[in-house]
């Protein structure tokens, strides 16, 4: 019998909304189980059920003890470590690193003897926090917060460790370190580790993967096994002929055999093939040509030595970035690297401390300089700034009104965008009822309703599933081709670099690299993917 058995666990929320439906799996001592899937597919619900912090149906057996409710789970909570989703969620901002470890030890009834102290030192060392024991958690970087949360969850040597997206938003190096800690813990203590992640690259580090979609587990197996299941469906890019086929940016997936060459499959492919198998049609995204050709200067945006300080903290340190006409520029970096700060300075949401900024050949020195340009700039914020109590249509009309677009023109554009971006069915729905992917496309429609010539997007792909993410990039490339506009986008998914024309990498508020995608690969011939390239920069800088 397996050490952990999960049998047909279902979590229902208010109004019979399904969190996770009839999920089952097993794990043995020392296993690392990976939950992979987009936001809202049930990964967290299943974690909460196993951790015994939410009511569920079904049965979970841990070390021969079966529980069916949070109350029954109480008995095994002393053997469990749980790290919920969110950066530094379980940390108290004003407590220091040392105080955290002692607090967690106390609430776990540990005796603070020599052994404990030695173990604490070992954990601190593994997490690279030995030098920061006196620092308050609120002043740690995102990666350090996650490492501290992890060692806090490990302090009582749990036999079952549940980690809900511990690496989201963490810089690549910290992510590697987190994985190293996990690997050594499971080897030394035989801990079962359950990790959910949005990064497909991390899948290869897990013994067994569970793929989540539509609030259920759709596939399971090792990363290699899973990838092999779609080997036969993955081809070099070829035009599609039949219905059971999907032609993407550089790959084609087909259920029927194609004449073209097979391509090395990826985990992402699983989601596309699964969509094909379920006959789920991806809405066709199109963008129609603009009526009048645009008069756009060759350099759309130029930042020279742009600097932003918050007290003694330098969020942006003398950054030089040029955005050219008809270009998609990706601004990459971990949480806290200064991406959002930079975009906010471009938009005038933060005052510029020093440096020069030129937007559309217009030097920006005051708010009045920006006022003239407002109609030419579109912006999608990190949290999709939409009004929750207004329908999609009302939201779009509102945004059009801000830009003083005539009503008949507004209505025409809304119809067209809804059609082209594939959210016609949702026009009268409230934003909170929309799937994240739809929400995101509709946010973009709101940002381009006034037909800007430059578009700034701040982490639009966070938490969105593979397919919706692909569609977003497809939309951005179409906007670039058909409208000839320039796009500046920030993201922490390193794999998305492939879609950009040029990439700028930020780290700790400084620009560490700026080049075209091809040149990056030329400079780093040994790298298999962008993740590895960026890792090299992060290591170098350290």
């Amino acid at each position: 019998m397996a050490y952990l058995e999960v049998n047909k666990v279902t979590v229902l929320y208010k109004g019979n909304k399904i969190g996770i439906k009839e999920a089952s799996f097993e794990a043995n001592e020392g296993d690392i189980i990976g939950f992979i899937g987009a936001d809202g597919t049930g990964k967290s619900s299943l974690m909460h059920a196993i951790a015994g912090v939410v009511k569920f149906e079904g049965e979970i057996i841990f070390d021969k003890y079966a529980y069916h409710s949070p109350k029954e789970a109480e008995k095994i909570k002393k053997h469990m470590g749980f790290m919920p989703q969110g950066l530094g969620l379980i940390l108290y901002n004003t407590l220091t690193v040392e105080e955290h470890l002692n607090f967690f030890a106390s609430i776990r009834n540990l005796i603070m003897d020599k052994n404990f102290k030695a173990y604490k030192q070992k954990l601190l060392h593994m997490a690279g926090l030995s030098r920061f024991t006196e620092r308050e958690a609120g002043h740690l970087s995102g990666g350090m917060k996650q490492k501290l949360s992890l060692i806090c969850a490990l302090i009582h040597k749990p036999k079952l460790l549940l980690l809900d997206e511990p690496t989201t938003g963490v810089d690549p190096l910290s992510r590697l370190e987190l994985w190293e800690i996990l690997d050594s813990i499971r080897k030394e203590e035989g801990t079962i580790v359950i990790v959910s992640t949005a990064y497909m690259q991390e899948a290869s580090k897990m013994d067994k993967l569970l793929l989540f979609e539509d609030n259920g587990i759709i596939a399971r197996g090792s990363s290699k096994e899973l990838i092999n299941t779609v080997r036969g469906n993955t081809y070099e890019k070829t035009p599609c002929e039949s219905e059971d086929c999907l032609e993407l940016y550089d790959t084609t997936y087909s259920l029927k055999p194609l004449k073209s060459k097979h391509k090395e499959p990826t985990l992402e492919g699983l989601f596309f093939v699964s969509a094909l198998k379920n006959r789920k049609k991806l809405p066709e995204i199109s963008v129609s040509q603009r009526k009048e050709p645009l008069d756009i200067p060759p350099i759309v945006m130029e930042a020279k030595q742009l600097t932003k300080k918050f007290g003694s903290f330098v969020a942006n340190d003398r950054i030089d970035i040029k955005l050219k006409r008809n270009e998609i520029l990706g601004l990459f970096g971990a949480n806290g690297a200064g991406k959002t700060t930079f975009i906010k300075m471009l938009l005038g949401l933060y005052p510029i401390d020093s440096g020069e900024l030129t937007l559309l050949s217009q030097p920006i020195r005051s708010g009045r300089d920006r006022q003239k340009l407002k109609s030419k700039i579109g912006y999608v914020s990190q949290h999709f700034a939409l009004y929750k109590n207004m329908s999609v249509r009302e939201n779009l009309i509102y945004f059009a009104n801000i830009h003083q677009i005539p009503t008949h023109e507004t209505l025409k554009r809304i119809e067209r965008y809804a059609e082209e971006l594939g959210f016609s069915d949702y026009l009268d729905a409230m934003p909170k009822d929309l799937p994240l992917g739809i929400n995101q496309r509709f946010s973009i429609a709101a940002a381009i309703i006034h037909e800007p010539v430059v578009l700034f997007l701040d982490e639009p792909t966070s938490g969105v599933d593979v397919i919706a993410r692909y569609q977003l990039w497809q939309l951005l490339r179409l906007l670039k081709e058909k409208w000839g506009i320039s796009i500046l986008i920030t993201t922490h998914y390193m794999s998305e670099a492939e879609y950009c024309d040029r990439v700028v990498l930020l780290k700790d508020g400084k620009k560490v690299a700026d080049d075209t995608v091809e040149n990056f690969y030329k400079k780093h011939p040994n790298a298999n993917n962008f993740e590895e390239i960026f890792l090299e920069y992060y290591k170098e800088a350290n």
Partner: protein
Amino acid sequence: MNIGVIKAYTLKEFKELMRTRMIFTVYALPLTILVLFGYGIRMEVTHSRILIIDNDQSKLSGELVEKFKHSKYFNTTEANISESKALKLIKQAKKDAIIIIPTSFEKRLIKAQKIDIAIFIDGSFPNRAHTIENYIESVIINYLQNYAQRYPTFSTNIIAINPRSLFNQAMRDEDAIVPGLIGLALFVSPAILTALLIVKEKEKGTIFNFYASSINKEDFLIAKLIPPFLLHSVSVLILFLIAVYLFRVPFRGSFALYWFSSELYVLVSLSVGLLVSIVTRSQIVALVLTVIITILPGFLYSGIILPISSMSRESYIEAHMFPVMYYNHIAYDTFLIGQGLSSKKIVLYLIILMGFACVLLNLGWFLLKKELKK
């Protein structure tokens, strides 16, 4: 009970309160309530502007006018204008009251005949109008008393009235208000702090440390209640000192009773905060909700504005449902009267307060769940 867990949580709360500077707001709220309202609420009316039309112009009527002129409660002017003109002055809000002394005032007084003195009062603020009316009547009665002493042959039944307020002989507003304000402050402040201490963890996510570990519900609750309880035990003392030394309210009862009943009352307030924290998820909602369910009844049923016994039936019943009334009765007693435990009512009220604490704390313990709300 696990002392280690309680100690760790309690220490953590204190560290957080100190480092986030929230410790200041803990004391700022009750102090503000006491000082602001203590100085701000004034029931008595001084310097009301009255106009006297003395139609008699005699020696005796002149003496009556002098009485008004020498009172700190009135700013008296005398004029010889028509009644209608005088009434216009009230309409224009230039005068608060008009007193018209009839032509035959002196004559009738000597003969001990009935005299009609006309008094017109601006009734836009009924409470104020009543107060002014009472003051004017007192002055007149006082005048007649003096007159009767001088002329023993004079006798009339009116003089029988002897207005005198008990327990608060000086009629000092501070004495009547400050003990009630302590009841308000000690109801609002501990409830808010308790609600915030728990909801803060829900909002941040740190509540998972409790949900996902083997900590007992009661240990968690005890640890969460200790900091607000200890901090407000200090408030109990501070508020007492302010009442006695700043507002100079007399203290006639036993300090032990004041202290014990206050601590008990703080416990009731904590449990109200606990209940709020169970139904809310964000600090702002918790704050607003606590303010609504504590400040309004705390003020309305404090006995400051209106004695409970003179309330209408509905509000009389409502007043008995909130703990404020019971505590305030004890507080007023310890400050102004000093019956202490010799009064059966006070013993009963202490028991009722204990009942409140027991029921609400148990309810909070019962409703607190170690799981996410769906």
